[in-house]
């Protein structure tokens, strides 16, 4: 069945204030649509349940990249095309810039927004692992004001998040304090473009005197939503990186991961490949440390 344009309402109020007023006066009635790369697919297939849509496309108030002191503020309406071409994202949050290049294709990157990627809440979301290992925060907005929460607390379940019915994702804040960290991100999919990941892994780590001082590891497609791998991190924190600790950490990851079998891959493959990616990251970390 195809979507019927007559059976869906779409409005474009033209300002963020008007959108927030609408979400407040009729909570849970309206579904925001930005670049439409998710919603229009469901619509075309005739499976879009939401009947009332409010457009965020073209709202300049949501499309910005600004360096504010010790972090980069990225408006929720910023497209992945914006992200991959922005010099301060490339220098300050290279893992995010890299993730932006592997989202869909050029045509998808022109339209897909970082806010849409997070609010949609796919377990495979491409920008999520990078944001998690940078300790990013998300800023939510409503007529009641703005509030910030750690991004790692944003997803609360499969396609569920911490936003109230009248709230909108306003911005993502990425701290700039990871420049000295070894950084890693890699996605494994059927092909480089237009592939939803089978699994993706990101990491940031800082060694001090040969021991792991700080480490953050996050994955997509290993659980119901993109998440940090805290037990795997704990297995590494405070110790050296060597062949034995790498093997132990890989074991911790495989015990902690909760992937599923689906159309794109199997749980067993996802766990094994995620462990291999972790091995690659830690081996690179070790090699970087060994360099004079």
């Amino acid at each position: 069945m195809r979507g019927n344009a007559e059976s869906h309402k779409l409005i474009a109020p033209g300002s963020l204030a008007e959108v927030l007023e609408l979400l407040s006066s009729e909570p849970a009635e309206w579904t925001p649509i930005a670049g439409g790369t998710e919603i229009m697919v469901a619509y075309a297939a005739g499976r879009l349940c939401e009947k009332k849509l409010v457009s965020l496309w073209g709202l300049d108030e949501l499309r910005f990249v600004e360096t504010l002191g010790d972090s980069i503020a990225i408006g929720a309406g910023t497209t992945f095309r914006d992200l991959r071409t922005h010099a301060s994202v490339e220098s300050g949050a290279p893992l995010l810039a890299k993730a932006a290049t592997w989202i869909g294709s050029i045509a998808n990157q022109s339209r897909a927004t970082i806010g849409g990627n997070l609010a949609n809440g796919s377990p495979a979301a491409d920008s999520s692992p990078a944001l998690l290992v940078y300790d990013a925060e998300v800023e939510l907005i409503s007529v009641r004001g703005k509030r910030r929460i750690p991004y790692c607390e944003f997803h609360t379940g499969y396609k569920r998040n911490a936003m109230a019915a009248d709230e909108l994702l306003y911005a993502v804040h990425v701290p700039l304090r990871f420049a000295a960290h070894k950084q890693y991100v890699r996605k494994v999919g059927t092909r480089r473009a237009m592939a939803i990941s089978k699994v993706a892994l990101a990491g940031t780590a800082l060694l001090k005197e040969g021991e792991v001082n700080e480490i953050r590891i996050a994955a997509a497609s290993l659980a119901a939503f993109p998440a940090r791998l805290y037990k795997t991190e704990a297995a590494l924190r405070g110790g050296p990186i060597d062949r034995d600790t790498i093997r132990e950490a890989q074991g911790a990851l495989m015990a902690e991961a909760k992937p599923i079998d689906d159309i794109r891959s199997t749980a067993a493959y996802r766990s094994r490949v995620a462990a291999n990616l972790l091995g690659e990251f830690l081996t690179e970390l070790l090699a970087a440390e060994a360099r004079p």
Partner: protein
Amino acid sequence: MSEIRPTISFTVNGEKHAVEAPPMKRLLDVLREDLHLTGTKEGCGEGECGSCSVRMNGELVNSCLVPALQAEGAWIETVEGLGKVGELHPIQQAFLECGGAQCGICTPGMLMATAQLLSVNPHPTIEEIREGLAGNLCRCTGFKRIFDSVAAAAGQMDSTVSMGGTHAG
């Protein structure tokens, strides 16, 4: 919910249009049905194949994923705006000479993706060509001749040829 049928105004290939359409009607359908610009094709209808690629405000988009309302005020370029019979655009000429088209369904999208790529990167490497066209699927040619066409077009393009550039909408 069909009471709202606004008039949506935009510019297509340099010409201003005002179309009365439901806001959720896909830009693809507006182009084909309302403006009779049938060069833009529908393949998958879900943003995977790139057959419906057009340029909107200087960016490549899948017109099957753009609700008409979001094209309000936009500057849109379709394959009909590239060249015409007897006066082909260098990209079209290159596809013709290199055998970059076979059945033809993907070709308008390939041409628009190429136009986008060359507008931001006039001398792409083969890797950049592959990335620029990665969202456009061809089931006939095996891509080699398409990539050859893009490389040939890049070699033939000169500064006197308008690529449409970028427009603020």
